[in-house]
C-alpha cells in the first residue's frame, strides 16, 4: 500500500519537476458578431482555411472552424453551443486543420461529427487523428472495381450489383425503405471482411437509436461506426459529419482494408450547407443553394475508391442516400448526385405500396460498373433478369387491357410474376449469395414455373432449408463462385428432389 503511495508521490514530483510551461505565441482575434451558428471575428490574420478555432467564453471553451477568410474578418462556423459566445470574446487559432479520431477505437461506437462519443461508453482512446477534409486519391493509385459487395438483397445483387469501391446512390421518396436497404447491407457484411461507417445526417435521434439497437442485436456493431449529427444538432455539425465519417473510413483504406460507408442522407446535408452559406452571406444560386454545392458532394464521393495493389488494395464503397420530393428526380441535388455516382438504386412509391418490397425499380436503377465485380455464378444466372424484370412491368401494364395473349407473352408474364415475387424480401433478412444463385437458377430454367405465384416465398424458404440440410451444393457455389456442368446438374437434381416432396405444385 505504502509503496504505491510513495511511487505516486515520487512520480508526481518528477512530473512536476520535468514540467516546463511552453511559452508560445498565439494568434488571437475578437468576436465581432455571432448568431445562428456562425461567428464573425476580427483579427486572426494568419488563420488557415478550415482551421480549428477556440472561442474562450465565460462558460468554457467552444470550438469552431474558419470557413471564410476575408480582408478584415474571418467567418467561422461554431461547433457546439453558440449561445455561450458573446461579442468581444477572445478567439485563438490552434494551428490544426479540423481532424477527428480514427482507428480501431471508433469501431462499435456511436460518435458525433467531431468524433466525441455519444454512447456513454467512455472516452475514445484514438492514437491517430485524420483531417476531415482530404483530397481524394489520384488516378495512379486507383483500379477499377473487381470485388463484389454482397448486399444480401436479391433484387440488388442480381440486377444492380455493387462492387467494392463503387458509389451507388439510393434515391427515393420519404418512408419507402431507403435506409432499410443500407442497414440490411451493413448487417450482411458480417464475415465479409468489411468495416462499415453509418453517417446519420439530420436524422431523428429515435430512428438512429433504433438502428443502433438493430445493428447491435444483429452483431453488426462489432465492425460498424455510427457517426450521428442529429436533427437538433447545429447545421455546422451536419455539414462536417459525412467528411468526418469518410476520414474514419480512410484510416482502414490506408491499411488496405475494405470499408462500406453510408451517408443518410445527403439532401439534408445539402440543406445544412445551404443554411451555413446563406448565413455567411455567400451568394445563393438555384434553389438558394450556393454555387459550390456540386463540389460539396463531388469532393466527398470522390474519396470513395478502389486502390490498386501498389497502394494497399483497400477500398471505400459509398452508399449515399438522397430523398426526393414526390418522386422528382430532376431536382437540383438529385441530378447532381446522380451524375457524381456510379449508378443509382431508384425506389418507387407505387411498387412499395403494392407490397413489392424492397421497392427497387428495375428500369430506372442502374449500376454502371458493378457487373464487373459480380461473381461468375451470379453473372450466369442474373444475366437476363434485369431485362426480363423491366419488360414484365411494361407487359403487365399492357396486358391489363386484353385477355387474348399469345403463348409467348403469357409465358413471359408468368415468369415475370414469379420474378417479382422472388425479389420481395423482408427487412433484416439478407440472403447469402449461394442461396440467391440457387433460387435464380431455378427460376430462369423454368423449374419454378409449376409453383403457384402465391406459394413462391414458401417454395424459396423451403428450398434454402432443403439445400442446407442435404448435400453441399450451396457450399460448392460459395467456394467456386462459378457454375460448371457438373454443378448445374447437381443443382437441377437438388431442386427436383425438393419439388418431389411438395404438394402445392400446379399439375
Amino acid at each position, binding site marked *: 500500500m505504502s509503496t504505491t503511495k510513495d511511487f505516486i508521490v515520487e512520480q508526481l514530483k518528477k512530473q512536476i519537476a520535468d514540467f516546463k510551461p511552453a511559452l508560445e505565441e498565439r494568434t*488571437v482575434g475578437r468576436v465581432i458578431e455571432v448568431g445562428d451558428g456562425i461567428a464573425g471575428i476580427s483579427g486572426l490574420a494568419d488563420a488557415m482555411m478550415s482551421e480549428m478555432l477556440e472561442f474562450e467564453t465565460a462558460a468554457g471553451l467552444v470550438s469552431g472552424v474558419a470557413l471564410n477568410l476575408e480582408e478584415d474578418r474571418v467567418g467561422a462556423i461554431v461547433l457546439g453551443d453558440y449561445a455561450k459566445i458573446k461579442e468581444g470574446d477572445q478567439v485563438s487559432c490552434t494551428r490544426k486543420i479540423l481532424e477527428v479520431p480514427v482507428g480501431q477505437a471508433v469501431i462499435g461506437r456511436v460518435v458525433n461529427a467531431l468524433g466525441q462519443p455519444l454512447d456513454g461508453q467512455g472516452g475514445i482512446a484514438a492514437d491517430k487523428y485524420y483531417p476531415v477534409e482530404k483530397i481524394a486519391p489520384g488516378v495512379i493509385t486507383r483500379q477499377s472495381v473487381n470485388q463484389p459487395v454482397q448486399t444480401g438483397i436479391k433484387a440488388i445483387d442480381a440486377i444492380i450489383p455493387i462492387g467494392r469501391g463503387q458509389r451507388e446512390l439510393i434515391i427515393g421518396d420519404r418512408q419507402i425503405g431507403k435506409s432499410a436497404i443500407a442497414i440490411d447491407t451493413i448487417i450482411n457484411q458480417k464475415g465479409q471482411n468489411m468495416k462499415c461507417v453509418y453517417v446519420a445526417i439530420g436524422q431523428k435521434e429515435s430512428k438512429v437509436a433504433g438502428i443502433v439497437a438493430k445493428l447491435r442485436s444483429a452483431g453488426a456493431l462489432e465492425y460498424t461506426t455510427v457517426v450521428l449529427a442529429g436533427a437538433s444538432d447545429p447545421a455546422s455539425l451536419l455539414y462536417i459529419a459525412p467528411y468526418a465519417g469518410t476520414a474514419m473510413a480512410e484510416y482502414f483504406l490506408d491499411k488496405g482494408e475494405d470499408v462500406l460507408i453510408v451517408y443518410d442522407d445527403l439532401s439534408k446535408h445539402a440543406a445544412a450547407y445551404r443554411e451555413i452559406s446563406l448565413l455567411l452571406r455567400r451568394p445563393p444560386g438555384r434553389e438558394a443553394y450556393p454555387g459550390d454545392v456540386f463540389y460539396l458532394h463531388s469532393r466527398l464521393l470522390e474519396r470513395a475508391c478502389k486502390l490498386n495493389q501498389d497502394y494497399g488494395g483497400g477500398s471505400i464503397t459509398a452508399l449515399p442516400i438522397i430523398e426526393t420530393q414526390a418522386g422528382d428526380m430532376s431536382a437540383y441535388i438529385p441530378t447532381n448526385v446522380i451524375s457524381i455516382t456510379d449508378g443509382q438504386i431508384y425506389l418507387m412509391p407505387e411498387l412499395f405500396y403494392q407490397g413489392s418490397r424492397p421497392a427497387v425499380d428495375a428500369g430506372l436503377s442502374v449500376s454502371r460498373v458493378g457487373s464487373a465485380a459480380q461473381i461468375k455464378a451470379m453473372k450466369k444466372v442474373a444475366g437476363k433478369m434485369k431485362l426480363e424484370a423491366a419488360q414484365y412491368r411494361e407487359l403487365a401494364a399492357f396486358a391489363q387491357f386484353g385477355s387474348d395473349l399469345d403463348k409467348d407473352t403469357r409465358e413471359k408474364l408468368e415468369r415475370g410474376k414469379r420474378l417479382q415475387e422472388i425479389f420481395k424480401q423482408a427487412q433484416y433478412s439478407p440472403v447469402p449469395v449461394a442461396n440467391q444463385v440457387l433460387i435464380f437458377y431455378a427460376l430462369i430454367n423454368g423449374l419454378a414455373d409449376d409453383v403457384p405465384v402465391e406459394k413462391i416465398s414458401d417454395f424459396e424458404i423451403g428450398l434454402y432449408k432443403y439445400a442446407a440440410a442435404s448435400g453441399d451444393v450451396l457450399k460448392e457455389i460459395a467456394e467456386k463462385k462459378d457454375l460448371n456442368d457438373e454443378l448445374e446438374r447437381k443443382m437441377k437434381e437438388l431442386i427436383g428432389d425438393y419439388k418431389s416432396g411438395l404438394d402445392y405444385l400446379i399439375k
Partner: protein
Amino acid sequence: MKITPKQFALCLLESVDGQPASQAKAVIKNFVELLGKQGRLGQEEKIIEEFGKLWNEKNGLVEAEITSVRGLDKELVKLLKNYIIKSSGAKEAALAEKIDTSLLGGVVIRYGDKVLDGSLKNSLLELKEKLVK
C-alpha cells in the same frame, strides 16, 4: 459601389502623408466636406478608428497591452517593449499596462493579433492538462 470606412481612411492617409501641418489642415477640411456631401459624417468614429490603425501600420507603431498582477517596474517594461518591437518588426510600441490579479503571477503580453501568455495561471492549467493525460 459602397465605400467602406477603411477606404475613406486610406484616402485621408494618402493625402495627408508627408504634408506640413498647415496644408494637412486644408486637406482635412476638404475631406470632411466630402464626407458631408456623401452623407457619411455618421461614420466618423469608424473612419477615425481605421485611420489610427493605418497610421500605426505605416509608421511602424504597434499597440501593445501588458497585463500583470501587481504592475511592473520600469526596467522590465523597457525590456518587454524591446521584445515586442523586435518580434513584431515595428519601429515603436505604444504600451498600455493593465492589472489583473486572477493571473496569479507572470505577465500576459498582447500586441496586434498576438498573445504571449506567460502567466502562472496558464502554466498551472497546462500542468493540469498534462497530469490528467
